[in-house]
């Protein structure tokens, strides 16, 4: 696992280039997908094709074998990397090739075919300019689509000038490109074997789709007489027509391009004549078109992933990089930290766990905070946070318990394995909070002493630079129990769910929510209910989270049956009800999801249905800076808060960062404090510029408010507090 120092080093050396490029790609994705008339429809179509293809994979592979052989090629299924490399080496040796030119392929990185061929004395040349830069620099890719994203133009110029000592020193991107093209062009022209990957392969015709921009993949195939394509078995789709949604989505989702320069649809062996560029006698039409083609489909753990209910979705991945670019943490640290042996970004946890094993996944899995921003960005709708959670749970399960006695009193969890002390502390935060409220303010005062903070940092990895939550002596549930409802003839009836933070820490926002709902004619109750399980889930403690989910569902079901709506203040807990409970509960999840609302969404609904905004606190024409919450945005609920505030007369400016950087417990952890603050800096910049500096700051999530409190020198609050009289 990358520790704080390694992460700081990567952010200092590569962070600027990674950040600029990924944020550019991410904005490009928003702009480019917005031009599609039916983006969601295309995504659904792409998802359905992948689901069917993986379900029918053995049959599709049989069909593909037939079509490839009918076309005059060979299909080889390799069990693992060594098997694939042995086959490739044999093909190269049979051809008597001295040089293999390659276009970009992550799967070829996975099997390390370059090293295997080089051991045989074969000259292996990467022709994608980014990959070539890395080959020259002897570095690993830091991004699955733009492998040299961590290198600036200046760094590449320095590398080339040092390595090749050109007559004229290289400086501009254009000069660097021309130099690389000329040098690689010659190497391509007299290579014997061309190796490509494949983004998709159709079973009906044996056509492979290659998504590229530079033209090197085209040249790699056209200028050699033997093509080897290396791809994972999961790349097979049934028919040529199935390629259409992917072609429209892949560039937009990844680098934000509507389409890349070249979409090669190759049905190898291709008909293009083979050329010797010294030949000045034979016209192209009279040249031989005799070519060899070998398709090497690699299993390497994929067929086992197909049988794994939680990892299967990984196989739908089309390697577009949207989950990397949309990830606030990836934007800071890049794939050298947020990646395993081959793959990087959120989905890499699935790939590395399935291909390499849990040890490799563990190296970076904790960098996924579960913020869920990648879920909307993924063109095939993979629940990437869930894959990260499951893998975290499996990693926890492999651990031997060591110091569990230290926290056993605080950690009444359901885990059979042994998550780290830190994970058990954060995962059992409900118990910590209950004790904290009972003993407040003594608990706050003691916890904040230097001795306690040092101990917490040493034993639990809770960073001493963070302010701890201040537990309130009187919980929201206790406060509510002592008062009578103010509504006599209710328009609606609701349960305000006392989430962990609203109940114990941010009690004022809970009180404000009650007052606002009552002002709009809602009969509210605040019964004691267990915490949602978000805390243990975020630590990969799925059994504990499931136990919470069952208790919450049992407590809320009678109220729903009684006709009450469930109103939730904390977006991450609402997201549990809407997204994760389906996976945790045998039944009841649908009913809870259908009847639960984010508090401002609920207010919006009340106003839409006749409640009067005049019953809320007057705005005084205040100007607001509003930061929504990552999971709230994934649920599509940012707009409701903005609409309500505007209707109430506020002038609202919103942040457009993917995440605040705190992400629950993430920003409290010593190893990740610097990453968390770096992520938060974008938000700080947006809320301290000339237009925003004097605006009142509101945010929907507890951890966003904690982060904003640390970043800004002005008070923060939940938007519902603005509306309460």
């Amino acid at each position, binding site marked *: 696992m990358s520790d704080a120092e390694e992460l700081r080093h990567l952010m200092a050396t590569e962070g600027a280039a990674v950040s600029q490029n990924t944020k550019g790609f991410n904005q490009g994705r928003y702009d480019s997908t917005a031009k599609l008339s039916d983006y969601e429809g295309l995504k659904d179509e792409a998802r359905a094709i992948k689901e069917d293809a993986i379900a029918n994979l053995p049959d599709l592979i049989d069909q593909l074998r037939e079509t490839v052989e*009918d*076309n005059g090629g060979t299909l080889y299924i390799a069990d693992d990397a060594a098997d694939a490399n042995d086959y490739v080496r044999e093909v190269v040796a049979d051809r008597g090739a001295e040089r293999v030119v390659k276009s970009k392929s992550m799967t070829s990185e996975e099997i390390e075919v370059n090293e295997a061929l080089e051991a045989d004395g074969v000259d292996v040349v990467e*022709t*994608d*300019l980014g990959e070539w*830069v890395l080959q020259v620099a002897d570095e690993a890719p830091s991004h699955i689509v733009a492998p*040299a994203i961590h*290198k*600036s*133009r*200046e760094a*590449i110029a320095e590398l080339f000038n040092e390595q090749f000592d050109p007559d004229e020193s290289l400086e501009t*991107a*254009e000069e*660097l*490109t021309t130099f690389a*093209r000329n040098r*690689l062009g010659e190497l*391509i022209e007299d290579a014997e074997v061309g190796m490509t990957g494949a983004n998709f392969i159709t079973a*009906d*015709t044996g*056509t492979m789709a290659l998504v590229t*921009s*530079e*033209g*090197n993949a*085209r*040249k790699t195939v*056209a200028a050699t007489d033997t093509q080897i394509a290396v791809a994972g078995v999961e790349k097979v789709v049934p*028919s*040529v*027509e199935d*390629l*259409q949604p992917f*072609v*429209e989505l892949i560039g937009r989702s990844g680098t934000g391009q*509507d*389409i890349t*320069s*070249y*979409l*090669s*649809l190759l*049905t190898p062996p*291709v*008909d*293009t*004549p083979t*050329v*010797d*560029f*010294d*030949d*000045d*006698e*034979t*016209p*192209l*039409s009279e040249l031989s*078109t005799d070519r060899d083609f070998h398709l090497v489909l690699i299993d390497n753990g994929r067929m086992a992933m197909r049988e794994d209910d939680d990892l299967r979705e990984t196989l739908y991945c089309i390697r577009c990089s949207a989950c990397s670019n949309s990830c606030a943490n990836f934007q800071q640290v890049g794939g050298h930290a947020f990646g395993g042996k081959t793959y990087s970004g959120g989905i890499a946890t699935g790939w590395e766990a399935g291909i390499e094993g849990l040890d490799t996944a563990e190296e970076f899995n904790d960098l996924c905070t579960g913020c869920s921003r990648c879920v909307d960005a993924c063109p095939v709708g993979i629940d990437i946070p869930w894959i990260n959670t499951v893998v975290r749970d499996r990693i926890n399960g492999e651990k031997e318990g060591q110091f569990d006695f230290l926290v056993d009193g605080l950690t009444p969890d359901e885990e059979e394995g042994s998550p780290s002390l830190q994970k058990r502390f954060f995962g059992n935060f409900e118990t910590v909070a209950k004790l904290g409220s009972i003993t407040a303010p003594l608990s706050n005062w003691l916890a904040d002493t230097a001795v306690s903070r040092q101990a917490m940092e040493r034993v639990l990895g809770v960073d001493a630079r963070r302010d701890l939550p201040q537990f309130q002596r009187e919980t929201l549930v206790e406060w509510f129990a002592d008062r009578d409802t103010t509504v006599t003839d209710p328009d609606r009836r609701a349960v305000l769910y006392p989430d962990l933070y609203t109940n114990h820490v941010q009690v004022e926002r809970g009180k404000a929510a009650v007052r606002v709902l009552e002002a709009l004619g809602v009969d509210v109750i605040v019964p004691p209910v267990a915490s949602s399980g978000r805390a243990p889930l975020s630590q990969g403690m799925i059994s504990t989270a499931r136990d919470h989910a069952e208790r919450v569902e049992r407590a809320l079901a009678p109220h729903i049956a009684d006709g009450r709506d469930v109103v939730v203040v904390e977006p991450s807990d609402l997201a549990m009800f809407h997204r994760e409970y389906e996976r945790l509960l045998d039944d009841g999840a649908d009913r809870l999801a259908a009847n639960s609302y984010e508090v401002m969404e609920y207010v919006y609904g009340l106003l839409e249905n006749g409640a009067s905004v005049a019953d809320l606190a007057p705005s005084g024409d205040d100007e607001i800076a509003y930061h929504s919450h990552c999971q709230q945005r994934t649920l599509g609920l940012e707009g409701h808060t903005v609409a309500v505030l505007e209707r109430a007369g506020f002038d609202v400016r919103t942040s457009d960062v993917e995440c605040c950087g705190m992400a629950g417990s993430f920003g409290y952890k010593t190893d990740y404090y610097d990453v968390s603050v770096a992520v938060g800096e974008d938000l700080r910049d947006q809320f301290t510029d000339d237009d925003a500096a004097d605006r009142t700051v509101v945010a929907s999530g507890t951890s966003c408010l904690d982060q904003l409190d640390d970043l800004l020198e002005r008070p923060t609050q939940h938007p519902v507090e603005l509306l309460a009289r």
Partner: protein
Amino acid sequence: MSASPLDTFVSALGSQDVPCERTTSTSFAATLAKHLREPAVGIPMEDLDVSLSDTDVTVDPTPAELKAADTGVTPASFAIADYGSVVIPGTSDGAELASLFVGRHVAVVDADDVVPGMETAFDRFGESFRDHASSAIIATGPSATADMGELVRGAHGPSEVHVIVLEDDDE
């Protein structure tokens, strides 16, 4: 009234800075001349109503002539309006080579072969590939890379693309 696929195609090319000229078979040779940077090589326009024989283009070149050429003229099987793309056939006449190993690619497409979008395009590919194993490149603008720190037009493939659209003489 919504724009015709041809209008959409021309406007998509415009937003990519790809020069495009609409012409007729009668004026083709004169039009093409304006888009050539010599030496130029080309692939016979078999399915189109025009010929390269009256032009300065070396038709069906040798590999050495191809390597020396600055412009490559090829027919496009069809064009995709929404994306401003031309489809280069991977045929044994070497259209792939003449469109790739040059600095400027001039693609010639019949106005009747402009399809509205990817759905129609892939229906067409599906039918044709199942009928006969074949290959094609959907090419959109010049080759490009951002791998050297900023966007550069002209990576391994052509740095310029020009498109000539053939319309009927009486249009």
